[in-house]
Protein backbone atom coordinates (compact mmCIF):
# COMPACT_ATOMS: atom_id res chain seq x y z
CA UNK A 1 0.00 0.00 0.00
CA UNK A 2 1.33 3.41 -0.92
CA UNK A 3 2.22 5.77 1.86
CA UNK A 4 1.25 8.78 -0.20
CA UNK A 5 -2.21 8.89 1.31
CA UNK A 6 -0.61 10.06 4.58
CA UNK A 7 0.44 13.13 2.65
CA UNK A 8 -2.85 13.86 0.89
CA UNK A 9 -5.07 13.04 3.90
CA UNK A 10 -3.83 16.15 5.66
CA UNK A 11 -4.73 18.35 2.72
CA UNK A 12 -8.36 17.36 2.27
CA UNK A 13 -9.75 14.54 4.41
CA UNK A 14 -8.04 15.66 7.63
CA UNK A 15 -7.65 19.32 6.73
CA UNK A 16 -6.78 20.88 10.10
CA UNK A 17 -8.69 24.12 9.55
CA UNK A 18 -11.80 23.23 7.60
CA UNK A 19 -12.42 19.64 8.76
CA UNK A 20 -10.74 19.12 12.14
CA UNK A 21 -11.25 22.82 13.09
CA UNK A 22 -8.04 22.85 15.13
CA UNK A 23 -5.64 25.72 15.74
CA UNK A 24 -8.30 28.39 15.31
CA UNK A 25 -6.45 31.00 17.40
CA UNK A 26 -3.51 31.56 15.00
CA UNK A 27 -5.88 31.00 12.06
CA UNK A 28 -8.13 33.89 13.08
CA UNK A 29 -5.37 36.17 14.24
CA UNK A 30 -2.62 35.89 11.63
CA UNK A 31 -4.58 35.69 8.38
CA UNK A 32 -4.86 39.44 7.82
CA UNK A 33 -2.96 39.00 4.56
CA UNK A 34 -2.00 36.11 2.29
CA UNK A 35 1.69 36.51 3.12
CA UNK A 36 1.09 36.41 6.90
CA UNK A 37 -1.03 33.28 6.53
CA UNK A 38 1.62 31.59 4.41
CA UNK A 39 4.42 32.40 6.86
CA UNK A 40 2.43 31.23 9.88
CA UNK A 41 1.52 28.01 8.07
CA UNK A 42 5.14 27.28 7.17
CA UNK A 43 6.31 27.99 10.73
CA UNK A 44 3.73 25.55 12.10
CA UNK A 45 4.65 22.96 9.46
CA UNK A 46 8.33 23.14 10.49
CA UNK A 47 7.42 22.32 14.11
CA UNK A 48 4.87 19.69 13.10
CA UNK A 49 7.26 17.69 10.90
CA UNK A 50 10.10 17.67 13.42
CA UNK A 51 7.96 16.97 16.48
CA UNK A 52 6.09 14.18 14.63
CA UNK A 53 9.38 12.53 13.67
CA UNK A 54 10.98 12.78 17.11
CA UNK A 55 7.84 11.63 18.91
CA UNK A 56 7.44 8.60 16.65
CA UNK A 57 11.07 7.72 17.43
CA UNK A 58 10.93 8.13 21.21
CA UNK A 59 7.37 6.92 21.90
CA UNK A 60 8.42 3.26 22.51
CA UNK A 61 10.62 4.29 25.46
CA UNK A 62 8.25 6.88 26.98
CA UNK A 63 6.20 5.55 29.92
CA UNK A 64 2.49 6.12 29.34
CA UNK A 65 1.88 8.25 32.45
CA UNK A 66 4.38 10.92 31.43
CA UNK A 67 3.82 10.93 27.68
CA UNK A 68 2.03 14.31 27.58
CA UNK A 69 4.79 16.23 29.45
CA UNK A 70 7.44 14.55 27.30
CA UNK A 71 5.64 15.45 24.06
CA UNK A 72 5.13 19.03 25.21
CA UNK A 73 8.83 19.36 26.06
CA UNK A 74 9.73 18.09 22.58
CA UNK A 75 7.25 20.46 20.90
CA UNK A 76 8.31 23.43 23.04
CA UNK A 77 11.94 22.75 22.18
CA UNK A 78 11.29 22.93 18.45
CA UNK A 79 9.15 26.04 18.84
CA UNK A 80 11.86 27.81 20.84
CA UNK A 81 14.40 26.69 18.26
CA UNK A 82 12.24 28.17 15.51
CA UNK A 83 11.76 31.38 17.49
CA UNK A 84 15.51 31.86 17.99
CA UNK A 85 16.29 31.10 14.34
CA UNK A 86 13.56 33.45 13.07
CA UNK A 87 14.68 36.26 15.38
CA UNK A 88 18.24 35.84 14.14
CA UNK A 89 17.77 35.33 10.41
CA UNK A 90 14.34 36.71 9.44
CA UNK A 91 13.60 39.43 12.03
CA UNK A 92 11.03 41.13 9.76
CA UNK A 93 8.82 38.04 9.59
CA UNK A 94 9.29 37.55 13.33
CA UNK A 95 8.11 41.11 13.94
CA UNK A 96 4.84 40.46 12.05
CA UNK A 97 4.03 37.08 13.59
CA UNK A 98 5.55 37.91 16.98
CA UNK A 99 3.48 36.44 19.78
CA UNK A 100 1.99 33.71 17.62
CA UNK A 101 5.29 31.85 17.18
CA UNK A 102 5.63 30.87 20.89
CA UNK A 103 1.92 30.04 20.84
CA UNK A 104 2.56 27.20 18.36
CA UNK A 105 3.44 25.17 21.49
CA UNK A 106 -0.20 25.08 22.47
CA UNK A 107 -1.53 24.72 18.93
CA UNK A 108 -3.81 21.70 19.20
CA UNK A 109 -2.76 20.51 15.75
CA UNK A 110 0.77 19.72 16.88
CA UNK A 111 -0.05 17.79 20.06
CA UNK A 112 -3.11 16.36 18.30
CA UNK A 113 -1.02 14.77 15.53
CA UNK A 114 1.50 13.51 18.11
CA UNK A 115 -1.29 11.77 20.04
CA UNK A 116 -3.40 10.60 17.13
CA UNK A 117 -0.71 9.61 14.67
CA UNK A 118 2.98 9.91 15.49
CA UNK A 119 3.03 7.68 18.58
CA UNK A 120 1.44 4.80 16.65
CA UNK A 121 3.32 5.06 13.35
CA UNK A 122 6.87 4.85 12.03
CA UNK A 123 9.14 7.83 11.53
CA UNK A 124 8.66 7.96 7.74
CA UNK A 125 4.87 7.90 7.92
CA UNK A 126 4.94 10.47 10.73
CA UNK A 127 7.11 12.81 8.67
CA UNK A 128 4.70 12.48 5.71
CA UNK A 129 1.76 13.11 8.03
CA UNK A 130 3.53 16.21 9.37
CA UNK A 131 4.12 17.48 5.84
CA UNK A 132 0.54 16.69 4.80
CA UNK A 133 -1.19 18.30 7.79
CA UNK A 134 1.33 21.17 7.70
CA UNK A 135 0.58 21.78 4.03
CA UNK A 136 -3.15 21.57 4.72
CA UNK A 137 -2.76 24.22 7.44
CA UNK A 138 -0.52 26.40 5.25
CA UNK A 139 -2.83 26.26 2.23
CA UNK A 140 -5.91 26.99 4.39
CA UNK A 141 -4.25 29.95 6.11
CA UNK A 142 -2.98 31.34 2.81
CA UNK A 143 -6.42 31.07 1.18
CA UNK A 144 -8.13 32.73 4.16
CA UNK A 145 -5.45 35.43 4.18
CA UNK A 146 -5.82 35.93 0.42
CA UNK A 147 -9.60 36.37 0.62
CA UNK A 148 -9.34 38.77 3.57
CA UNK A 149 -6.55 40.77 1.93
CA UNK A 150 -8.45 40.98 -1.37
CA UNK A 151 -11.70 42.12 0.25
CA UNK A 152 -10.14 44.15 3.03
CA UNK A 153 -7.40 46.05 1.23
CA UNK A 154 -7.85 45.18 -2.45
CA UNK A 155 -4.48 43.50 -2.83
CA UNK A 156 -2.97 40.01 -2.99
CA UNK A 157 0.44 39.13 -1.49
CA UNK A 158 1.00 42.88 -1.11
CA UNK A 159 0.28 43.73 -4.77
CA UNK A 160 -2.53 46.21 -5.25
CA UNK A 161 -5.16 44.66 -7.55
CA UNK A 162 -8.36 46.57 -6.90
CA UNK A 163 -8.72 50.33 -6.60
CA UNK A 164 -9.86 51.89 -3.34
CA UNK A 165 -9.39 50.97 0.29
CA UNK A 166 -11.45 47.79 0.41
CA UNK A 167 -13.84 46.76 3.16
CA UNK A 168 -11.99 47.37 6.40
CA UNK A 169 -14.07 44.85 8.39
CA UNK A 170 -12.40 41.96 6.56
CA UNK A 171 -8.97 42.89 7.92
CA UNK A 172 -10.39 43.10 11.45
CA UNK A 173 -11.52 40.17 13.62
CA UNK A 174 -15.15 39.91 12.39
CA UNK A 175 -13.91 39.41 8.84
CA UNK A 176 -11.86 36.42 9.96
CA UNK A 177 -14.93 34.65 11.32
CA UNK A 178 -17.03 35.48 8.26
CA UNK A 179 -14.40 34.35 5.76
CA UNK A 180 -13.61 31.13 7.64
CA UNK A 181 -17.31 30.31 7.91
CA UNK A 182 -17.98 30.73 4.20
CA UNK A 183 -14.79 28.92 3.16
CA UNK A 184 -15.75 26.03 5.45
CA UNK A 185 -19.12 25.77 3.71
CA UNK A 186 -17.53 25.76 0.26
CA UNK A 187 -14.82 23.30 1.34
CA UNK A 188 -17.26 20.79 2.78
CA UNK A 189 -19.62 21.06 -0.19
CA UNK A 190 -17.10 20.67 -3.00
CA UNK A 191 -13.92 19.04 -1.71
CA UNK A 192 -14.68 16.72 1.17
CA UNK A 193 -16.20 13.57 -0.27
Amino acid at each position, binding site marked *: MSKMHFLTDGLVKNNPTFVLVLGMCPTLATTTSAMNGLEMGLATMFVLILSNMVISL*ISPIVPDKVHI*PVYIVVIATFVTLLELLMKAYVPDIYATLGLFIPLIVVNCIVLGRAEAFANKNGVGASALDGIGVGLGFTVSLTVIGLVRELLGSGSAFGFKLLPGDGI*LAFVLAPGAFIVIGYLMVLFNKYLKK
Partner: protein
Amino acid sequence: MAAQSNLRNMLLCLTGVCLVCASLLAAVNAVTKDIIAETAHKNLVASIAAVLPEGGELSESQATDAAGIGEYYVLSSDGAPVAYAVKSTTNGFGGALTLMVGVLPDGTVYNTSVLEHSETPGLGAKCTEEESHFRTQFKGFRGALKVTKDGGAIDAITASTITSRAFTLAVKQAVDMVNTLNGGQNNE
Protein backbone atom coordinates in the same frame (compact mmCIF):
# COMPACT_ATOMS: atom_id res chain seq x y z
CA MET B 1 4.84 -0.95 23.29
CA ALA B 2 5.39 1.84 25.77
CA ALA B 3 7.79 1.33 28.67
CA GLN B 4 6.31 0.50 32.07
CA SER B 5 5.09 3.49 34.08
CA ASN B 6 7.12 2.94 37.24
CA LEU B 7 8.80 5.78 39.09
CA ARG B 8 12.29 4.88 37.86
CA ASN B 9 11.30 4.83 34.18
CA MET B 10 9.32 8.05 34.42
CA LEU B 11 12.17 9.90 36.16
CA LEU B 12 14.75 8.62 33.69
CA CYS B 13 12.61 9.45 30.69
CA LEU B 14 11.64 12.98 31.74
CA THR B 15 15.15 13.84 32.92
CA GLY B 16 16.70 12.44 29.76
CA VAL B 17 14.33 14.24 27.40
CA CYS B 18 14.72 17.55 29.29
CA LEU B 19 18.52 17.25 29.29
CA VAL B 20 18.70 16.63 25.56
CA CYS B 21 16.24 19.44 24.78
CA ALA B 22 17.99 21.91 27.09
CA SER B 23 21.41 21.18 25.59
CA LEU B 24 20.05 21.58 22.07
CA LEU B 25 18.49 24.94 22.94
CA ALA B 26 21.64 26.11 24.72
CA ALA B 27 23.66 25.33 21.62
CA VAL B 28 21.28 27.16 19.27
CA ASN B 29 21.05 30.09 21.67
CA ALA B 30 24.85 30.39 21.73
CA VAL B 31 24.89 30.62 17.93
CA THR B 32 21.98 33.05 17.50
CA LYS B 33 22.46 35.28 20.57
CA ASP B 34 24.96 37.65 18.97
CA ILE B 35 23.06 37.87 15.69
CA ILE B 36 19.82 38.73 17.53
CA ALA B 37 21.53 41.37 19.68
CA GLU B 38 23.18 42.87 16.61
CA THR B 39 19.84 43.11 14.75
CA ALA B 40 18.16 44.72 17.76
CA HIS B 41 21.00 47.22 18.04
CA LYS B 42 20.91 48.00 14.31
CA ASN B 43 17.14 48.67 14.50
CA LEU B 44 17.61 50.94 17.51
CA VAL B 45 20.40 52.91 15.82
CA ALA B 46 18.29 53.24 12.66
CA SER B 47 15.27 54.49 14.64
CA ILE B 48 17.44 57.04 16.47
CA ALA B 49 19.06 58.23 13.24
CA ALA B 50 15.61 58.63 11.66
CA VAL B 51 14.46 61.21 14.23
CA LEU B 52 17.63 63.28 14.60
CA PRO B 53 19.47 65.76 12.41
CA GLU B 54 22.57 64.40 10.69
CA GLY B 55 26.07 64.71 12.08
CA GLY B 56 27.38 65.02 15.62
CA GLU B 57 28.22 62.49 18.28
CA LEU B 58 25.57 60.20 19.75
CA SER B 59 25.80 59.42 23.48
CA GLU B 60 25.22 56.09 25.16
CA SER B 61 21.70 55.39 26.43
CA GLN B 62 20.77 57.62 29.40
CA ALA B 63 18.30 56.70 32.12
CA THR B 64 15.61 59.00 33.48
CA ASP B 65 12.70 58.60 35.88
CA ALA B 66 10.36 60.90 33.94
CA ALA B 67 6.92 59.32 33.43
CA GLY B 68 6.65 57.11 30.34
CA ILE B 69 10.23 57.64 29.23
CA GLY B 70 12.30 54.51 28.73
CA GLU B 71 15.66 55.99 27.90
CA TYR B 72 17.13 58.81 25.86
CA TYR B 73 20.18 59.59 23.76
CA VAL B 74 21.92 62.92 23.33
CA LEU B 75 23.33 64.05 20.02
CA SER B 76 26.05 66.61 20.59
CA SER B 77 28.43 68.60 18.46
CA ASP B 78 31.56 70.18 20.00
CA GLY B 79 30.29 69.29 23.47
CA ALA B 80 26.98 71.12 23.17
CA PRO B 81 23.75 69.13 22.79
CA VAL B 82 22.18 69.47 19.32
CA ALA B 83 19.18 67.20 19.78
CA TYR B 84 17.73 64.43 21.95
CA ALA B 85 16.24 61.09 20.87
CA VAL B 86 13.72 60.04 23.50
CA LYS B 87 11.99 56.67 23.76
CA SER B 88 8.49 57.42 25.01
CA THR B 89 5.64 55.00 25.79
CA THR B 90 1.92 55.61 26.33
CA ASN B 91 -1.23 53.51 26.21
CA GLY B 92 -2.77 53.49 22.76
CA PHE B 93 -6.08 51.98 21.73
CA GLY B 94 -4.84 48.41 21.48
CA GLY B 95 -1.94 48.38 23.93
CA ALA B 96 1.38 50.09 24.51
CA LEU B 97 2.44 52.65 21.91
CA THR B 98 6.18 53.28 21.90
CA LEU B 99 7.75 56.10 19.92
CA MET B 100 11.23 57.43 19.33
CA VAL B 101 10.94 61.23 19.40
CA GLY B 102 13.66 63.58 18.24
CA VAL B 103 13.58 66.85 20.20
CA LEU B 104 15.76 69.93 19.78
CA PRO B 105 17.15 71.58 22.96
CA ASP B 106 14.59 74.41 22.70
CA GLY B 107 11.69 71.93 22.87
CA THR B 108 10.91 71.80 19.15
CA VAL B 109 9.97 68.36 17.81
CA TYR B 110 12.41 67.31 15.08
CA ASN B 111 10.85 64.05 13.94
CA THR B 112 8.99 60.99 15.24
CA SER B 113 9.15 57.27 14.59
CA VAL B 114 6.93 54.41 15.80
CA LEU B 115 8.86 51.60 17.50
CA GLU B 116 6.01 49.40 18.68
CA HIS B 117 2.25 49.59 18.44
CA SER B 118 -0.86 47.41 18.47
CA GLU B 119 -3.32 49.88 16.96
CA THR B 120 -6.22 48.81 14.74
CA PRO B 121 -5.15 48.12 11.13
CA GLY B 122 -6.71 50.66 8.78
CA LEU B 123 -7.61 53.07 11.60
CA GLY B 124 -5.14 53.82 14.41
CA ALA B 125 -2.33 52.00 12.62
CA LYS B 126 -2.33 54.92 10.16
CA CYS B 127 -0.11 56.64 12.72
CA THR B 128 2.76 54.58 11.25
CA GLU B 129 2.39 56.23 7.81
CA GLU B 130 5.22 58.72 7.87
CA GLU B 131 4.01 60.82 4.93
CA SER B 132 0.51 61.31 6.34
CA HIS B 133 -0.66 64.75 7.49
CA PHE B 134 -0.91 63.48 11.05
CA ARG B 135 2.79 62.60 11.14
CA THR B 136 4.20 65.51 9.14
CA GLN B 137 2.51 68.09 11.39
CA PHE B 138 4.83 67.04 14.24
CA LYS B 139 7.97 67.91 12.26
CA GLY B 140 9.25 71.22 13.60
CA PHE B 141 6.24 71.53 15.88
CA ARG B 142 6.45 73.75 18.92
CA GLY B 143 3.42 74.65 20.99
CA ALA B 144 0.43 72.99 22.65
CA LEU B 145 0.86 69.25 22.13
CA LYS B 146 -2.79 68.26 22.30
CA VAL B 147 -5.30 67.20 19.66
CA THR B 148 -7.66 69.93 18.47
CA LYS B 149 -10.61 68.24 20.23
CA ASP B 150 -8.80 68.82 23.54
CA GLY B 151 -7.95 72.43 22.65
CA GLY B 152 -4.50 71.80 21.15
CA ALA B 153 -3.08 72.28 17.67
CA ILE B 154 -2.68 68.68 16.46
CA ASP B 155 -5.19 67.35 13.90
CA ALA B 156 -6.21 63.84 14.94
CA ILE B 157 -6.45 60.90 12.54
CA THR B 158 -10.08 60.54 11.43
CA ALA B 159 -11.95 58.00 13.61
CA SER B 160 -8.83 57.35 15.70
CA THR B 161 -8.91 59.99 18.42
CA ILE B 162 -7.61 57.64 21.11
CA THR B 163 -4.57 56.66 19.05
CA SER B 164 -3.96 60.30 18.12
CA ARG B 165 -4.19 61.36 21.77
CA ALA B 166 -1.78 58.61 22.84
CA PHE B 167 0.66 59.53 20.06
CA THR B 168 0.49 63.23 20.92
CA LEU B 169 0.92 62.48 24.63
CA ALA B 170 3.99 60.36 23.90
CA VAL B 171 5.52 63.26 21.96
CA LYS B 172 4.59 65.66 24.77
CA GLN B 173 6.23 63.40 27.39
CA ALA B 174 9.43 63.49 25.36
CA VAL B 175 9.35 67.27 24.91
CA ASP B 176 8.57 67.80 28.61
CA MET B 177 11.50 65.60 29.58
CA VAL B 178 13.89 67.59 27.38
CA ASN B 179 12.51 70.86 28.80
CA THR B 180 13.00 69.62 32.38
CA LEU B 181 16.50 68.51 31.45
CA ASN B 182 17.32 72.03 30.31
CA GLY B 183 16.15 73.52 33.58
CA GLY B 184 12.68 74.47 32.46
CA GLN B 185 14.02 77.49 30.62
CA ASN B 186 11.96 76.67 27.56
CA ASN B 187 8.61 76.79 29.27
CA GLU B 188 6.30 79.09 27.45
